[in-house]
C-alpha cells in the first residue's frame, strides 16, 4: 500500500465522541483548550457536540456540562485554521438545532441515521445544503447490512444533497475486508465528486487498519480522536493515524508532534479513566453493539449486580441500534430477576 500524494482529511472526534466516556462533562474551558491544541497541530476538522449530537441533552443520554451552543460558540471563537463540525441525529435533534449550529459558525453538518433509515434525514440534509454547509450523511452501525444495502441508503442521502457519505463502524465490529467491500462499492456507485469517509472504533484494535483499508478503497475522510478519546475502546487514535499516513506518503497537513502533544498534554489529563480495550469494549466489537452503551451497562452493573459485558451481549443479540440506551436498565432488571 502506498498513498503517495493522496490528500486525506482527518477529522477529530474527541470533543464529540469523547463526550461519551466523559459522560458529556467536558467543560467549556477544556474544550477550548483542546480545540486550540488541535488547531495548532493543523487538524482540519474538529467535531464539537453532545455525544449523541445536537439536542442530545437528556435524561436518557445524559445532560452535558454546557449547552451545544455554548460549546460551539466558545470553540469557533478559539480556532484559527480548523473548521468545526456538528453531529445531528434526526429523532433526537431537529432543524432548529441545525440552524443554531450554523449560526454559531459551524462549517460541516453530519446527519447521522441508523444504516437502514436514511430517509429520515431528508429535511436536515436539505437544509444543511441550502445553508451552504459541507453536508455529510453518516450511516451508523454499517456492519449490520451488506454493502449493496448500504449503497442504497447512501444514494438516498446523496440525492438529498449530501456531498460526503460515511461508512460508520459504530460498534467497532468491522474487519478490513468489511471496510474494503463497503467503501469500494460506495466509491463505485456514488457520484465521482461525492466524498467517502470512514469512522472507526477501536474495540477490536482495528481502527488504524480499517481506516487504511478505507483509504485504499477510495475514502478520503477519516475520523479519529486525539488520544483515542471516544466511546467503547475509543476512536481510531488520530495521532497514530496521522503518523502512519505520513509514513505512507499521504498528505494530511497535520503536524505529528504537535498532535501528539495535544493528545498527551491536553486530552489525556481530562480522561476519567484510561480509554482502553477493556472486556466490555471487546464484547462491543466482537458482538457488534453500539459503543456508547458501554458506560450505561457499567452503571447498570453497579446498580443491579449483573455483569456489564453480559448486558452488552444481550443488547447485541436483540439487534439494538444507536439511541436505545433506555433498554439497558430494563435488560439489567430482567437479568437480575432471572438470577434471583
Amino acid at each position, binding site marked *: 500500500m502506498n498513498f503517495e500524494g493522496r490528500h486525506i482529511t482527518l477529522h477529530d472526534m474527541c470533543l464529540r465522541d469523547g463526550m461519551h466516556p466523559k459522560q458529556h462533562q467536558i467543560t467549556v474551558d477544556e474544550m477550548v483548550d483542546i480545540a486550540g491544541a488541535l488547531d495548532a497541530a493543523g487538524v482540519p476538522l474538529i467535531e464539537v457536540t453532545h455525544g449523541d449530537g445536537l439536542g442530545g441533552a437528556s435524561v436518557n443520554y445524559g445532560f452535558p456540562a454546557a449547552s451545544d451552543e455554548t460549546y460551539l460558540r466558545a470553540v469557533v471563537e478559539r480556532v484559527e485554521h480548523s473548521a468545526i463540525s456538528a453531529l445531528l441525529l434526526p429523532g433526537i435533534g431537529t432543524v432548529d438545532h441545525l440552524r443554531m449550529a450554523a449560526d454559531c459558525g459551524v462549517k460541516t453538518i453530519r446527519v447521522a441515521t*441508523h444504516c437502514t*433509515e436514511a430517509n429520515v434525514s431528508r429535511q436536515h440534509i436539505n437544509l444543511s445544503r441550502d445553508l451552504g454547509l459541507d453536508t455529510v450523511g453518516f450511516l451508523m452501525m454499517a456492519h449490520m447490512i451488506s454493502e449493496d444495502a448500504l449503497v442504497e441508503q447512501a444514494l438516498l442521502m446523496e440525492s438529498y444533497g449530501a456531498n460526503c457519505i460515511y461508512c460508520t463502524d459504530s460498534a467497532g465490529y468491522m474487519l478490513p475486508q468489511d471496510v474494503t467491500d463497503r467503501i469500494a462499492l460506495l466509491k463505485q456507485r456514488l457520484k465521482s465528486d461525492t466524498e467517502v469517509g470512514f469512522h472507526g472504533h477501536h474495540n477490536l484494535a482495528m481502527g488504524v487498519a480499517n481506516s487504511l483499508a478505507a483509504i485504499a478503497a477510495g475514502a478520503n475522510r477519516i475520523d479519529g480522536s486525539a488520544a483515542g478519546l471516544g466511546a467503547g475502546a475509543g476512536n481510531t487514535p488520530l495521532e497514530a493515524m496521522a503518523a502512519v499516513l505520513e509514513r505512507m506518503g499521504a498528505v494530511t497537513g497535520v503536524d505529528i508532534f504537535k498532535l501528539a502533544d495535544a493528545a498527551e498534554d491536553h486530552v489525556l489529563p481530562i480522561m476519567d479513566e484510561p480509554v482502553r480495550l477493556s472486556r466490555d469494549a471487546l464484547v462491543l466489537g466482537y458482538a457488534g453493539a453500539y459503543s456508547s452503551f458501554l458506560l450505561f451497562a457499567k452503571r447498570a452493573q453497579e446498580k443491579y449486580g449483573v455483569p456489564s459485558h453480559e448486558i452488552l451481549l444481550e443488547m447485541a443479540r436483540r439487534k439494538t441500534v444507536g439511541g436505545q440506551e433506555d433498554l439497558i436498565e430494563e435488560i439489567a432488571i430482567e437479568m437480575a430477576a432471572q438470577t434471583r
Partner: protein
Amino acid sequence: MTTKAKAAIIGPGNIGTDLLMKCQRSDFIEATWMVGIEDSAGIQRARALGLRTTTEGVDGLVAGFSADPVDFVFDATSAYVHAENSRKVTALGAMMIDLTPAAIGPFCIPPVNLQALLDRGPTQNVNMVTCGGQATIPMVAAVSRVQPVSYAEIVATVASKSVGMGTRDNIDEFTRTTSSAIEKIGGADEGKAIIVINPAEPPLVMRDTIHCLTKEAPNETDIRTSIAAMVTDVQRYVPGYRLKNAPIIDGHRVTISVEVEGLGDFLPKYAGNLDIMTAAGLRTAEMIAQRRQSSRSSL
C-alpha cells in the same frame, strides 16, 4: 335502542383500514364512508364491507353528504391536506378527528384530557397528537397528577416497518408535536421527545420509556397507584398496553417503560404505535357519541 353515530374515514391506507376494522366492532360508531383519491385496495375493501365510497377525495364526501350525512370524520391522510379537509368537513357540521400531525384543533389524549375537552363545550376539530404522544403522555399525566413535574422526556422505539413516509419526511414534526403535548397535556413544565427506529426482524413491538423529573421527592406510593390506574384506563381501548417493569425511582427521577402491542386488526401486532392512534381516535369519537346520546336521553 341506541343508534350508532355515523362516521367517514378519509384515507383508505393502512391506518384508515385498521380504523375501519375497529369501527366494525364499535357499539357507538358506524363507519359509513370511505374517502380516497383512487380506486385502491383500501377503497375496494371498504366497498365490499358495504360502505359508501368515493375516489373524489373530500369533495366526493361533501357532494354526497346531504344524502348520507355523518357525525364524525376521521382524517387519516397527511398534515399537508388536513387543513382543507377539516375546513370542508366542519362547514357541514361534522366533527373532525385528526390523526395527522397537523394539530389545528386541541390535542386529545383520551384518558387524560378528553373529558375536560368535552366539558369546555363543542369542539369542531381535535388532534390525536402522535403515536409516541398517545403511548407516553398518559404516563406523564399519571405522575404530574400526583405532584409537579418540572421535566418529562419520552423515548419511543418503533419498528422500522411501522414508520410511514409521512413521518420519515418530517420526523421533526414528531419531535416538536410530542414535546409540546407533553407540556400542554402531560402537565410537565418542559417536555422532550426522542424517536428511535429499529429495523430488526422480526419487527419489535413498540416500546416507550418515560422519564419524569419531579420537583419534590417522588411520592412513590401515590405515583405507583396513579400509574396502575392510568394503565388500566389506556387498556380499555388498547388491551396490549403494558407496563414493562415497576417504575424506577432514583432521586427525583421516575422512569416508566411500557410496551404497546396492537390488536392486529389490519396493521400487524408489533405496530402498536399505529394501533394506539386508531384506537385513541375511535375512543374519542365513542366518548363524544356516548355523551351526546346521554344528553339527548336526559332531555
